[in-house]
């Protein structure tokens, strides 16, 4: 029984071994309704949509029963699928070899035989190399999926393609390259009256038209060839104009260890400059258009490509490149090399492109599953999955202000520093006087770069044994670690550094009933404000820091990460009688805003000096040198141009990023804003420009009057945090 596939709602029969193109030709169908067919994967004249995948070369695609093949529209792009079904993952195989040989012909096989540990990819076996990337990394599409091969050398042995004709009538049906004609005849097709044009070899025997090709004549299908010597009537034309190196992959490998061998390495004479017709069939770029852009000064290959888009279509210059070069040479330019080629050399599906890819993995704290269990909405913040809210942010806020709450702050950066030079190194890293931090005490610190700009903040804590613990922001921890390691190495300091961020979980306990909660889980001998110590909490050994980001009585419990769930659950259970509610990041950002605490990266910019963020108190210019000191001294001498300040708004809270207006002029923008139940007003921080030498007191934000006020908005004496 003859097998069939569907082409444009019509059944098409095929023979064993047929490509889709051969089967279509057998049925008298040209997939793009005209243009020279090459059957070698080098031209755009047989592309179609096959089973929903567009731009497939039907000459390279085996016919199979049940395939649904649709022609592309005469102009424009093929339509996108009406429904997008989840596509199964495309398998990927990664290999490492010494040499990748692209091309399984004689020169490719010879090159492979000469080299050790070589693998050959052959388009004839359906192994299409789609790109050579730095590495080199060779990407191959195969019937089994994508293959990515890392190698030391690439050998391009892709052979030669056949030159296509450029003249009037080159878009007719019935035009075949010599190899294509040979394939079709071998498959048993009748080509009718055949005429050969050109001096190249022909795989079929037929009359040969002499003279230079002028045009093809016909209505839809070729009926005659016209040359300088006469007119030959025919049903098919074999175009034997010669060969050109199939070198797109070679041109892709510029600057990489790529060797080109065989016909791909040849430099045949360029074809005559065309005088009329379509040069680039992918983009329908004509000789007249080339002349137009030439007249406008686009006289180099790369410019010609960009001005006309010739060479950027399906065949990536396979057809037009020789003619573009001969055109430029004819018009008076020097002979120019073919333009650079870049991956991909074959159209790929999204699934093929994505083979082996994964969504970025965001780290999850040890409490991730606990958060999900109690209904947290997780979000990716500061490089981590974090609970944004547990469903009622207002209730979370109120729990911290009036009762007690816990929050997962395991994402905070944490680092141990020991060694004979630990203090000396930290003195040079930080703008605070580290020597005055007593054992068991912590101090808030800024991290400045050489330009005196703030790029992170955290704590420096001196341990009872004289070593140090540092903390950083969640998003800045990795950068801060690299910063400190780099400087330690540069200065040659004898220190030991251990990033403990992933080793230690951290739970923030906050609210006026914090002491009652901690007492209920057996925590005694808690450290004083801005102190730290080792305390068992619910039987879990914790390093306890007393500090406050929320403005309420707070402790951070740092503990071995495998005990996080146990500690969280013990606190929640003991806190139930106290009305405990966990708080997510949304509540935390509101709570800290009440206190005017900055979020580095949100409230700061890349040029935020300590003075601009009103943190001069965190910089000790008398203690000796530190990173950024000279810049701070220098910029302190310049008149202040803007500052991070606080606003209250009686009418509401503006969106973050809102413009601040003063007297009808732009005066800055809001970095943080929220409605504060504790303050009973909208509160905001933002960058405010100095106007006429002063910071304006009254501005407009989102049409609302806003009043500049001194930070913090809430509990300015700090009595609640120090309770």
């Amino acid at each position, binding site marked *: 029984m003859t097998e069939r596939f569907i082409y444009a709602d019509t059944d098409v029969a095929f023979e064993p071994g047929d490509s889709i193109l051969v089967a279509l030709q057998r049925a008298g169908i040209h997939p793009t309704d005209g243009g020279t067919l090459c059957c070698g994967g080098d031209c755009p004249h047989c592309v179609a949509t096959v089973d929903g995948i567009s731009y497939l070369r039907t000459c390279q695609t085996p016919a199979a029963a049940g395939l649904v093949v649709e022609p592309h529209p005469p102009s424009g792009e093929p339509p996108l699928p009406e429904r997008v079904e989840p596509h199964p993952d495309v398998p990927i195989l990664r290999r*490492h070899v010494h040499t990748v040989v692209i091309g399984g012909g004689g020169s490719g096989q010879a090159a492979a035989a000469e080299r050790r540990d070589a693998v050959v990819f052959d388009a004839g076996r359906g192994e299409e190399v789609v790109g050579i990337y730095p590495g080199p990394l060779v990407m191959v599409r195969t019937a089994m999926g994508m293959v990515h091969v890392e190698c030391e050398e690439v050998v391009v042995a892709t052979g030669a393609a056949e030159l296509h004709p450029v003249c009037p009538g080159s878009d007719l049906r019935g035009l075949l390259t010599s190899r294509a004609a040979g394939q079709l005849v071998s498959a048993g097709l009748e080509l009718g009256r055949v005429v050969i044009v050109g001096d190249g070899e022909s795989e079929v025997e037929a009359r040969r038209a002499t003279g230079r090709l002028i045009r093809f004549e016909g209505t839809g299908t070729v009926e005659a060839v016209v040359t300088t010597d006469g007119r030959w009537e025919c049903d098919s034309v074999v175009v034997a104009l010669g060969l050109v190196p199939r070198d797109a992959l070679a041109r892709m490998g510029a600057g990489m260890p790529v060797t080109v061998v065989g016909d791909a390495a040849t430099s045949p004479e360029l074809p005559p400059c065309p005088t009329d017709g379509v040069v680039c069939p992918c983009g329908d770029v004509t000789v007249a258009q080339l002349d137009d852009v030439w007249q406008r000064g686009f006289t180099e290959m790369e410019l010609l490509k960009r001005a006309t888009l010739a060479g950027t279509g399906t065949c990536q210059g396979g057809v037009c490149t020789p003619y573009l070069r001969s055109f430029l040479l004819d018009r008076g330019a020097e002979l120019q090399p073919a333009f650079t080629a870049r991956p991909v050399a074959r159209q790929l599906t999204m699934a093929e492109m994505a083979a082996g890819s*994964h969504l970025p993995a965001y780290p999850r704290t040890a409490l991730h599953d606990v958060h999900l269990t109690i209904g947290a909405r997780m979000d990716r913040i500061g490089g981590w999955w974090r609970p944004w809210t547990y469903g009622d942010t207002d209730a979370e806020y109120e729990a911290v202000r009036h009762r007690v709450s816990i929050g997962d702050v395991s994402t905070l950066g944490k680092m141990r520093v020991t060694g004979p030079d630990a203090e000396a190194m930290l003195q040079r890293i930080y703008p605070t006087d580290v020597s005055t931090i007593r054992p068991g005490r912590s101090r808030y610190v800024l991290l400045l770069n050489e330009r005196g700009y703030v790029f992170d903040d955290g704590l420096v804590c001196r341990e009872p044994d004289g070593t140090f613990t540092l903390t950083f922001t969640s998003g800045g921890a990795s950068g801060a670690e690299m910063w400190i390691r780099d400087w330690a190495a540069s200065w040659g300091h004898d220190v030991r550094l*251990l990033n403990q961020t992933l080793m230690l979980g951290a739970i923030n306990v906050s609210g006026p009933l914090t002491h009652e909660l901690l007492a209920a889980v057996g925590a005694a001998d808690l450290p004083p404000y801005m102190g730290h110590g080792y305390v068992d909490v619910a039987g879990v050994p914790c390093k306890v820091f007393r500090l406050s980001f929320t403005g309420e009585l707070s402790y951070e419990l740092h503990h071995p990460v495998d005990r996080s769930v146990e500690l969280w659950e013990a606190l929640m259970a003991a806190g139930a009688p106290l009305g405990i509610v966990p708080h997510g990041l949304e509540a935390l950002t509101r709570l800290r805003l009440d206190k005017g605490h900055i979020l580095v990266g949100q409230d700061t910019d890349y040029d935020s000096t300590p003075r601009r963020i009103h943190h001069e108190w965190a910089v000790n210019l008398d203690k000796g040198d530190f990173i950024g000191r000279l810049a701070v001294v220098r910029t302190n001498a310049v008149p202040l141009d803007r500052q991070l300040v606080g606003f209250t708004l009686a009418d509401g809270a503006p969106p973050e990023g809102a413009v601040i207006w003063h007297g009808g002029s732009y005066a800055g923008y809001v970095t943080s804003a929220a409605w504060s139940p504790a303050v009973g007003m909208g509160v905001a921080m933002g960058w405010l420009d100095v106007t006429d030498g002063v910071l304006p007191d009254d501005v407009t934000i989102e049409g609302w009057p806003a009043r500049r006020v001194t930070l913090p908005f809430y509990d300015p004496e700090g009595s609640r945090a120090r309770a």
Partner: protein
Amino acid sequence: MLDRLAAARVVARPDALDGLPGLVLRLAPDEALVLGTELPHVADPHAIVTNDASWRGVWLEPDRAELFFAAECDWPRPTPRPVFAQGMIAHLPVKLWLEDDRVLLAVPHVFAADLAERLEATP
């Protein structure tokens, strides 16, 4: 699928880490992860030696590991074995301990769920 690895983390002068007994993953010249429950003795008075419960790992048979690597690892694994290696595998920072008859894949706990998911997705 992944188990917690009992381990000690050691940061010390590089020469003090040379010759540490047991299964030692040398994460950096001055840093090692020593598998086991004992804290090792390190000849550096300023060394940081601490229990580290933050790693998750799985031992695979070599054939199973190679299947996973073929799909997810774009760098060649070193020989001879046993040998330690580290790098991105399945887009995750993975530590490998490669023996002739088994392979350990270890990641920080924060990526354990991702590694487990990617292992399960590999045929």
